[in-house]
């Protein structure tokens, strides 16, 4: 059973705790610029969404990575970055359609979510479960179930 970092944007309050947790866990400091998860906010509407690497099955970043620094682990399904092999060409930054491969100007490194090896710091810090580390079947089916409940309510007497 594979796990995924599930995003529930309707629960996001725009607090950035996930960014701080990620930054401290990976870089040892609080630097929202150097995080693998980023929160985008629309202040007028009061809406925020956290976003990070989705570990695509057919990952364009892997396709363009010449030194094979980016690879897919067949057991977990995660896209992993070997920093030792990375040459900093930034092809993955250009290839990812979701913008989830980030170039850090300060350290000259590629920043990409690595699921913290299976215990994501961001999900632990999120106060509203806008980010959840869940088994992927539960995650997707739960939302479907929640929505279809509306039909039950609509058709009930």
């Amino acid at each position: 059973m594979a796990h995924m970092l599930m995003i529930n944007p309707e629960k996001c309050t725009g607090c950035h705790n996930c960014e701080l947790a990620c930054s401290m866990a990976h870089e040892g400091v609080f630097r929202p610029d150097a995080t693998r998860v980023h929160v985008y906010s629309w202040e007028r509407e009061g809406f925020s969404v956290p976003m990070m690497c989705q570990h695509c099955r057919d990952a364009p970043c892997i396709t363009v990575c010449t030194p094979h620094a980016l690879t897919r682990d067949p057991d977990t399904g995660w896209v992993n970055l070997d920093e030792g092999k990375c040459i900093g060409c930034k092809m993955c930054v250009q290839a990812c359609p979701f913008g989830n491969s980030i170039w850090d100007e300060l350290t000259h490194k590629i920043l990409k979510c690595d699921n913290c090896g299976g215990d994501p710091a961001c999900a632990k810090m999120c106060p509203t479960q806008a980010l959840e580390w869940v088994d992927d079947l539960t995650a997707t089916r739960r939302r479907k179930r929640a929505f279809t409940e509306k039909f039950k309510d609509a058709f009930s007497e």
Partner: protein
Amino acid sequence: MNGWTGKILRVNLSTGKLSTEPLDPDSAKDYLGARGLGTKIMTDEVDPKVDPLSPKNKLIFAPGPLTGSYAPSAGRYTVVTKGALTGAIASSNSGGVWGPELKFAGYDALIIEGAAPKPVYLWIRNQKVEIRDASHIWGKTVPETSDAIRAETDDDAKIACIGPAGENRVLFAAIMNDLHRAAGRSGTGAVMGSKNLKAIAVVGSGAVTCADPKAFETAVMDAREKIQKHPVGGAGLRLYGTNVLTNILNEVGGYPTRNFQDGHFPTADKIGGETLAATLLQRPRGCFSCIISCGRVTKVTNKKYAGEGEGPEYETAWGFGGDCGVDNLDAVTKANYLCNEYGMDTISMAATIACAMELYERGFISRKDTGGVALEWGNAEAMVEATRLTGVGEGFGKKLALGSYRLAESYGHSELSMTVKKQEIPAYDARAIQGIGLNYATANCGAAHVRGYTISPEVLGVPMKVDKDTIEGKPALVILFQNLTAALDATGSCLFATFGIGADELAGMLSAVTGVAYTTDDFMKCGDRIYNLERQWNLAAGLTAKDDTLPIRLLNEPIKTGASKGMVSRLPEMLPTYYELRGWDGNGVPTPAKLGELSLTA
């Protein structure tokens, strides 16, 4: 340095000079940051007798050592200056995300000096700082300003700005950040407007570092758990927001109604937090690093009062609601949106309208004076129109812009202004709740509730319940809350973290992030020191013990209806004990012994 960035940015708008200087480690140790550091800078650099709107006043923006870390609900900053409304020291606290951005840009404080010859805005990207022309942005509302500046700087720039109200020097104009958050009280926005400074845009790519990450993580996780377990911090505030207080205050009979003519408002439920949650609420919202999420994202679809944004909070709902006799939540929310768009403190705006309504109802102001606006109790339309006129600076709005004290004084009835040190009293009746009255009278920035929020013990029962009607023990209680709050404010923490944690946990997190060891006593002493430094500044500005008082109505006129019927404030019985316990003489002046204890000089 850790926690702190170790650097202060100084901008002189008269000369255009930009410079940085190191943060003095002794000042940092003794005053922490934010409100504390700002007060220290004011003491060292600003003559307390200056005119607040003159170039000689300074405007200081300071986050704290916890700001930008993952200490729970600790993303705040303080604006410190001489208040345009009060002539006393002003330290207005705000949340949102702007304060942390200034830390990531590398600064513990931004000091604005002088005044620009024409409208400008400040653009800070880490070490790169520019003063830019803002003449094409002058006159714009807060949301328009944010859009315009982002288009010229960076889509992700965090913006603190004034609206037309600050430009026009409305005496209670606010500085707004992130559209919906306010450094609201005491007229900080008017000071910014007097400097021709429209906005400060910040992008920060740097780091806030931590001295002992393991210890900090442990302290933070412990603090988070305590707040999350607490019913108020962990669930209550997210469900209902601060406006849940409407019914609570009303039921205990301490809900000031119609300019404090009474303490109970029969239809208060219509504008309370439960009703807000059931009607206008879209979703909760949190500031930087917040785990409480008390913010209310709201929308009014009613055509007459249509709008969207954040709020209303309790004080706002009270002010535009019961204080004006209005029970229309759409109208109250619209007035709240207008204040955010034009950049005005909702408490002072609303209470000034309430005062004007009483003057009108008593016949001291005529309909001719108001330009046709019928300032009758409960007239929601008039209340909203009065707010709008003040924001745009037209008609009677120009008189309302003076605040209730100067407005009422101009009609010969300053006793009808419900203020302390010319700042409007917020949403808790001092006659029904003795301790909060003492806090209003002695808060250094003028009447304010968060300076010493004894509503927590006196009404809510947090951390323990005390009788709201007794005066025994109240001076000590008020002092404790005032000192704790001063220290808490100086770290960058939000007051609502105290629904769960206290001085012990704050001192622990502070020590771990800065690497400077603070015991709980050290921490509380910082608070006491900050409080006394503010007091000294005010005394030098010309305030005296005579200003530590309440409006005559609260001292002499009993509440008419509700659970606290018949009560008055017993301030005169509490004040001497307060001075004594504070270590001040009979005139409210800190004694040499007290100053020595805090390592302050006379």
